[in-house]
């Protein structure tokens, strides 16, 4: 299996704080990787390095086997890396279709927005991955949490993502809503043309979606297994053990 994305020995310091302390991980082609860990463990920092938002203090990234130094989010994007942040980066006061095309707006004559074409393509893209919203003209503020998440994911997928990074896609959502998102992610996984890394809190839900999981704790990866070979109980055990060892040490 070939690699979509690989991080080697990533260190990230913010002043005196070491957020990541030598993280190495690989995301294979077409797989879903779950990145688990507590708040402040460094998951979000890792994510922001993979998206080109932060530059690592040291360490090496490679995309499809070629080493790269990501200069910006746009640079990462040009390599097919798309990200859905926890805050979703949606604009509440804009319509669904304007959000789908945020910073990729289609323009026509006189560089004016081509709203008709954006509306058409947004409808198509949402249909394509089975996301339903009341209307693509609706302001995002009026959507439910699950719909908002789905729009954010659809936006990332639609922009020709090869590598999709999701930050807590199931956070702060009711059972029905998170069910919708899990179904959406499983559908995307079934397409097979996307490599997905998702940061999450919930072990059971993550194991349901991911092919493989890693645990991030105090800036390091402490555990890695195929989802089929582990369980929520085992993961919880490892977290407890590490936590005690870390405090004791």
């Amino acid at each position: 299996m070939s690699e979509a994305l690989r991080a080697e020995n990533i260190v990230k310091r913010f002043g005196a704080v070491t957020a990541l302390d030598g993280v190495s991980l690989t995301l294979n082609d077409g797989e879903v990787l779950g990145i688990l860990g507590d708040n402040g463990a460094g998951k979000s920092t890792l994510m922001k390095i993979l998206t080109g938002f932060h530059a690592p203090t040291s360490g090496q990234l490679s995309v499809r086997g070629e080493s790269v130094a990501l200069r910006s989010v746009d640079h990462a994007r040009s390599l097919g890396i798309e990200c859905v942040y926890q805050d979703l980066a949606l604009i509440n006061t804009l319509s669904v279709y304007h959000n789908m095309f945020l910073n990729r707006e289609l323009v026509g004559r006189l560089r004016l927005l081509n709203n008709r074409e954006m509306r058409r393509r947004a409808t198509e893209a949402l249909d394509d991955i089975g996301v339903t919203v009341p209307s693509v003209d609706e302001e995002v503020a009026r959507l439910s949490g699950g719909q908002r998440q789905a729009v954010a994911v659809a936006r990332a997928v639609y922009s020709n993502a090869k590598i999709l990074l999701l930050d807590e896609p199931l956070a702060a959502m009711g059972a029905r809503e998170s069910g919708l998102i899990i179904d959406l992610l499983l559908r995307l996984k079934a397409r097979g043309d996307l490599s997905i890394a998702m940061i999450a809190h919930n072990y059971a839900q993550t194991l349901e979606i991911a092919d493989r999981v890693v645990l991030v704790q105090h800036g390091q990866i402490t555990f890695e297994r195929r989802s089929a070979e582990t369980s929520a109980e085992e993961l919880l055990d490892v977290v407890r053990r590490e936590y005690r060892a870390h405090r004791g040490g």
Partner: protein
Amino acid sequence: MSGQKRGALRRSLGRFLVWREASVIVVAVLLVVYFQASNSNFLTGDNLQTLSQFIAPSAIIACGEILLLICREIDLSAGQTFALAPFIVFYAAQAGLPVVLAILVALAVCALLGLLIGLVTVGLGVPSFITTLGTLFLINGLTLTISGGFPAGTVGGPVLTYIMGNAPYAEIVWAVLITAAGHVLLRRTRWGMHTIAVGDNLTGAAEAGINVARIRIGNFMITTTLAGFAGILEAFRIGSTDPLAGGSNIMFLAVAAGVIGGTSLTGGSGTIIGGLLGAVVLGVLQDGFTLLGINAFMFDIIIGAAILVAMISNVYLGRIRGMRS
């Protein structure tokens, strides 16, 4: 009336009410009807001209202030830029530049002021409320220094003077054109979308790869340039360049026009056309009460009340809009 009919009426009324600019139009029309009924001189050619002259400068500045309010910024010094610009035209022309070029130089200086305000605000992270409070005094001092505190005349031939504000309705024509351009900029261009994005969700906009600093700084530059342009129009119309023209009064009128027109003070949404309508409401109030012989002190009370009512109804209508789904 049958229930069905009533339902249809309520629906269309509902649609009208949730249309952003609707409430301002209703208010403007009611005010015009009231003042015309109280004083038949209201809808005369002479008075409409006076009215248009009052409305135009604040409507032009409002276009800029609305863009700034949408991206959660404000320019408190727009009224001082308004006073500075015609002096630059005057002195540049006296130094030998053709008047058209002198106007362009003045607008370029105004744009530079906007760049400065933007760089300090965005680059150093100073709230624009503070930055422009500083530039308010700074620009005012600059104008007073270069003018020596005395008014100057204006430059330029009759045709240019005519076009640039001296023709009976020149200023309001400029205001309408600028409003139309501003509306297209906000609703139909990437710049407008990104301005809304920056105001609603700064982090999200940055994460989407939008150059948020460029948007914020650019809107400061648009505002200072428009403020300078309005000041130049005003000087050409009056035929005199006054170091104390505009000031905080015109800036507050512009911001009030924007807010009355339906622009949110919390960022992320607004309407340029609403700004022009807001300026019309303020102009009609000012002019109407003047015709009725209400004194100037009373006028401030009325304007204050009007702004409060407008903001309260904005919040209220915003809630109705939110409930519609």
